[in-house]
């Protein structure tokens, strides 16, 4: 957080309104047409999951990125919001109340807000480790409650409802995933827009100020504690909305929605995407969901790769994926991004190939160790080969070593190009 300057609040003097609205219009268009590109139900299910994670990650980044508060128990706000929504769903069904499904996430948000208000009242007094540890403790306590207080949380089986028993909303019954997708997409846009606008309000700006320098903020008339409290509540609200969306999509909430694993992964998702930029968590959520659902179909070792990815990201790109993208903005503005294309092809491509080679080696070792006796045949990257023969090994080792060697060799060239692309013409370098 320290090095990724958050300039997103800078008002562009006289900046055209259209310019500011462009990303949103593009988002609307993309969200509207993407189900026609990926039409299968499973793709839509995965996109729903992504959208929910995006809302949650954006809400989490209101704390971490914008408020500088590290929470280890944020899943509980999403979870409690979701649980309440399922209960409401069941009430609506039992008593035939006229509550249309599309407004349900709002209730999730309100309950998330309610819980955040209670917890925030004592946890936001201090920032830093005190806050982090209280969030951990509270998160553990509520997660533990989920198996103890069965009446509300339903034990490990959770609580389930049925989204279709409510009243049809303009004739839509939400029987199919695609209907749910558009509902979730609507809420995703609405909450993302609200969260974006929130970061431009006085309290949103002061959240940044308190993150950077709480003491100075105090001498400007703002109580750091109240600023943190309001950020916390707002974050709880949007996390609750994510919970409501979860309830609609999956129609079930369980202990896993509250536990530490969930809280930890949202931290990783947000960080992977980049906490310094508003859109960072969006990238993080998309990438992580793909890794979790698609890569896990590819290999049992997916968590090994995800772990390695996180460690590598934090070591080399602490600004996250968004940080990597934004690093190129100066060069693009100066119209010199073209200088980087060739060096990138020369370094990144071999690096990717080398990494794939390494992954292939790991997979082959895993295969030899764990596959059935006699099952020496394995398929990787559309190629079937015998894992016990020497040739594939040689090929993989060769690919790995060559890939990394090429990367290493071409790295100085990339550095030079990078330097040149980021130097204003005419100025001494």
């Amino acid at each position, binding site marked *: 957080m320290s090095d990724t300057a958050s300039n997103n609040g800078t008002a562009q003097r006289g900046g055209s309104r259209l310019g500011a609205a462009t990303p949103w219009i593009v988002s609307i268009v993309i969200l509207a047409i993407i189900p026609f590109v990926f039409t299968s139900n499973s793709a839509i299910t995965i996109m729903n999951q992504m959208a929910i994670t995006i809302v949650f990650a954006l809400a989490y980044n209101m704390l971490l990125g914008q408020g500088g508060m590290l929470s280890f128990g944020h899943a509980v706000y999403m979870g409690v919001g979701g649980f309440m929504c399922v209960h409401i769903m069941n009430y609506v069904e039992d008593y035939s109340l006229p509550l249309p499904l599309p407004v349900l996430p709002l209730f999730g948000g309100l309950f998330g807000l309610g819980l955040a208000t209670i917890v925030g009242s004592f946890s936001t007094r201090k920032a830093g480790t005190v806050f982090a540890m209280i969030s951990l403790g509270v998160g553990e306590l509520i997660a533990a409650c989920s*198996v103890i207080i069965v009446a509300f949380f339903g034990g490990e089986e959770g609580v389930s409802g049925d989204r279709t028993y409510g009243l049809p909303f303009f004739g839509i019954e939400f029987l199919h995933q695609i209907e749910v997708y558009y509902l979730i997409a609507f809420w995703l846009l609405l909450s993302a827009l609200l969260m974006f606008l929130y970061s431009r309000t006085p309290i949103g700006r002061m959240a940044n100020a308190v993150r950077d320098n709480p003491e100075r903020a105090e001498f400007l008339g703002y109580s750091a504690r109240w600023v943190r409290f309001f950020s916390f509540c707002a974050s709880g609200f949007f996390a609750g909305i994510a919970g409501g969306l979860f309830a609609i999509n999956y129609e079930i909430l369980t202990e896993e929605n509250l536990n530490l694993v969930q809280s930890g992964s949202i931290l990783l998702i947000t960080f992977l995407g980049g906490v310094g930029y508003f859109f960072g968590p969006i990238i993080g959520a998309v990438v992580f969901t793909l890794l979790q659902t698609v890569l896990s179909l590819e290999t049992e070792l997916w968590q090994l790769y995800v772990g390695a990815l996180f460690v590598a990201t934090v070591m080399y790109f602490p600004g996250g994926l968004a940080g990597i993208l934004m690093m190129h903005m100066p060069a693009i503005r100066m119209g010199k991004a073209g200088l980087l294309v060739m060096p990138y092809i020369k370094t990144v491509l071999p690096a990717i190939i080398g990494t794939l080679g390494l992954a292939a080696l790991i997979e082959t070792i895993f295969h030899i160790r764990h596959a059935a006796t006699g099952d020496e045949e394995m398929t990787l990257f559309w190629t079937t080969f015998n894992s016990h023969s020497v040739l594939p090994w040689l090929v993989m080792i060769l690919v790995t070593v060559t890939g990394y060697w090429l990367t290493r060799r071409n790295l100085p060239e990339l550095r030079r190009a990078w330097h040149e692309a980021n130097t204003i013409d005419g100025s001494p370098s």
Partner: protein
Amino acid sequence: MRITTRIGVSSVLALAISAGAAFAENIKIAFIDPLSGPFASTGTNGLNQYEFAAQYLVNDKGGVLDGDMFEIVGFDNKISPKESLIQLQVAIDQGIRYIVQGNSSGVANALTEAIEKHNRRNPDSRVLFLNYSAVDPALTNDKCNFWHFRFDANADIKMDALTDVIAQSDDITKVYIIGQDYSFGKAVASAAVEMLGEKRPDIEIVGNELHPIGKVKDFTPYARKIVASEANAVITGNWGSDMLGLGKAVIENGYTGPIFNYYAGSDGITAAFGESGKGILMQVSEGKLNPPEEKALEYFTAFREKYPESDVSQPRITNVIEMLAKAIDQAGTADDVVAVANALEGMEHDSIWGGKVFIRPQDHQAIQDVHILAHTNEGVQIDLDNSEFGPVAVNTVEMAAMDSATTCKMKRP
């Protein structure tokens, strides 16, 4: 990477191109269970058993219908209900019509509800849920539905069998019940109290408690209480590291009576108990591993040859595969799952592990022999964890709980 890798590529394509081509010659069965994370060992082991059973019991014998083969497709649900629902959707999109799952009643509960809703909302792509291990009684009672079949004996049935055995042994006068604090642990405890009260009112229940699931680091305090209560039998539904931790602590602190359990076998647990658990651990389970039937021993030998590191820890898997094959043959189609389900209802089957399996039509619960299996190294031909230790049947209740009541009100399509 076995099958996972092979199907992986196609699953990505399935995301890009609209799937729905169910014209493959193979009849695919989706195995949705944890293949990564803390419960992965049970999951991978189960996947091995399914793959082997499909190969050995069906494909090697010519397949079903006109030579269609079974293909097991593994889906990693990370033991998360949410992930299970996503993977279910992916499986359905790949044209898979048969779902097998077993680990965690929470996941089973999420799946059975999701499948019920899916089948109601999408009559064109209905699927069957063959639950081989989740034993929460509710799944074949209040929460039952037409699409769900359970091949394991549920917790109540096992307890019924167990209490039958306890009722006959006069040495047992004081029983201590301990379990994990969640639905299954509670179901075991309440069934034990109720059934012991009916069958042996003289037995004193000296302890009945729940501990947080997966959070206890050291079971010694619990063991102390058990020893101090002078119990001469312990009943527990614990599994995984909670089972090992509890069992080791209890034995270490000087307890010598039987520990009646549901899941103290395989996944390293048998090996880790080793000599210390001999004569103490008594598992109540279907599937008589030892002494083995001739067919069973052949099956096991072939299995070990292929998977030297794996166990036949869930014998019922062979029943799932064989009975599904039979049902498909009877129905004459693998695409019409209603017909297959109707064929499964009321089916009687001779298990390779001995005894019969009968699918009760009222609730789709498999009724079968339930055994009390002692952890020992004597007379073990089918061992677990390659430890030379394994379960040997000491008592058998035939067709356990055949006439037990069910609250299931099955709605048929």
